[in-house]
């Protein structure tokens, strides 16, 4: 006597910028279970990395994700640096922080815009993306490219940021912060938004840990875990404290990201204030040999690279675990019990990046 229906959600859906399919089993309007299907954008990057030289892989791994390209390159370069036993210069470390945080900032802007769009707040979506454009212009000026900035290299960075540009970054950040002050309250205090996010897609702290959630999904459950606490690059010297919220619902996840925007602005300012002089590139020596794991914090959460090298100029194995890959099981746990109309909001609340996930 069951009147259950199965509705395929995606892979093409107005709120999904990337293809993931969820097979939703519904009892009337309520989701009973969800099974995710990915595999629409698998590119075989891990295999391609075995074919290319380890120095060329920097440009390959940047293409795992267009939104946080620099952070992928950073994670890879740090792993190779560990294997070759070299260390980036202090200035390079600070430059890496600056570019990483700008990437996080623009990624969170992108997500906030898409999140607003999921409720049908199109004007707000444009406001966020207009802000983001100011950040993209910084990349254009400092790195020479808007999206895949290709400035990270094994042993440091490929480009320096001049004092003129540093001042420009500071000015832009002032403007971005001013705009954030105007736009963020709309998404955080609006009656409709609250109605559709508070208590929706809730998971408990235990569930989040058990299902291996990463990044803002984990921190929205009060778990203060952020890979930046490991103190890679110059984060150890910047006095970093992770942002946490306790409710574990869509609203808490949005709030974590909103607060991280301000945190990133502060981190960039601090990094620019403390930026030391000096060389930007340490020459690598020898070829990588051994196995190493490198972890950094992406806008979406913890990114893990496992490298196995045998002393030739090609890697034996490169394993990439992206945060969305870890956040799909929590998503499956969030969906049962929610209304069909809330599914888009919940899916967006983990900030899915499917191209990352499948590599």
């Amino acid at each position, binding site marked *: 006597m069951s009147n259950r229906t199965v509705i395929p959600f995606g892979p093409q859906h107005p709120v999904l910028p990337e293809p993931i399919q969820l097979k939703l089993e519904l009892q009337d309007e309520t989701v009973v279970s969800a099974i995710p299907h990915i595999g629409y954008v698998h590119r075989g990057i891990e295999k391609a990395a075995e074919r*290319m030289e380890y120095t*060329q*892989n*920097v*440009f*390959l791994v940047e*293409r795992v994700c267009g939104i946080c390209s620099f952070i992928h390159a950073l994670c890879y370069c740090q792993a190779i640096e560990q294997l070759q036993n070299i260390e980036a210069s202090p200035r390079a470390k600070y430059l890496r922080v600056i570019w990483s945080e700008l990437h996080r900032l623009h990624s969170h802007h992108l997500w906030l815009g898409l999140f607003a769009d999921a409720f049908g707040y199109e004007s707000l979506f444009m406001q966020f993306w*207009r802000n983001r454009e100011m950040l993209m*212009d910084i990349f*254009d*000026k400092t790195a*020479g*490219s808007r999206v*895949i900035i*290709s400035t990270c290299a094994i042993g440091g960075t*490929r*480009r320096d940021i001049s004092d003129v540009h540093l001042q420009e970054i500071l000015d832009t950040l002032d403007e971005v912060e001013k705009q954030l002050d105007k736009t963020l309250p709309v998404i955080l205090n609006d009656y409709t938004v609250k109605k559709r996010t508070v208590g929706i897609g809730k998971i408990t702290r235990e569930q989040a840990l058990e299902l291996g959630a990463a990044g803002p999904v984990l921190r929205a459950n009060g778990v203060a875990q952020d890979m930046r606490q490991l103190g890679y690059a110059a984060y150890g010297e910047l006095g970093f404290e992770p942002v946490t919220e306790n409710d574990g619902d869509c609203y808490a996840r949005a709030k974590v990201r909103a607060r991280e925007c301000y945190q990133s602005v502060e981190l960039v300012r601090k990094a620019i204030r403390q930026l030391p002089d000096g060389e930007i590139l340490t020459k690598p020596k020898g070829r990588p040999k051994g196995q190493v794991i490198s972890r950094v914090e992406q806008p979406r959460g913890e990114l893990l690279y496992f490298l196995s090298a045998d002393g030739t100029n090609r890697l034996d194995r490169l394993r990439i675990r992206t945060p969305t890959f870890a956040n799909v099981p929590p998503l499956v746990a969030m969906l049962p019990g929610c209304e069909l109309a809330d599914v888009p909001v919940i899916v967006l609340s983990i900030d899915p990046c499917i191209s990352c996930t499948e590599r």
Partner: protein
Amino acid sequence: MINNVLSNLFSKPATRDFPAKMREIAENVRGSVEFNTENCVYCGACALKCPANAIEVDRPAKKVTFDLYKCVACACCAEACRKGCIQMAKQYAHPSYRKMDVVFQGEPLLTDANGDS
């Protein structure tokens, strides 16, 4: 509310009048690769460094073939070239109807995959 209305009425639009006003291209931008084969010694360093395998150097024939559509504009070739033959131009590659290789043998030639110019 009234402030918003007034400021939106009298402020400039957020967008550009696109075809009339182009976005200014930043200095040091990695736009597209520009070859200058006059000083080239055909050492092949650029082809070796290229992560996308977009460059082929034929030393005996003194020929450089550059696949514009494989290029990822990373500027590795420009860094590798000791003769300063490769520069990153301050303009982006233009769209095209056909995928063409750029062949340099003396004068740059544009050919498509079949070798027709």
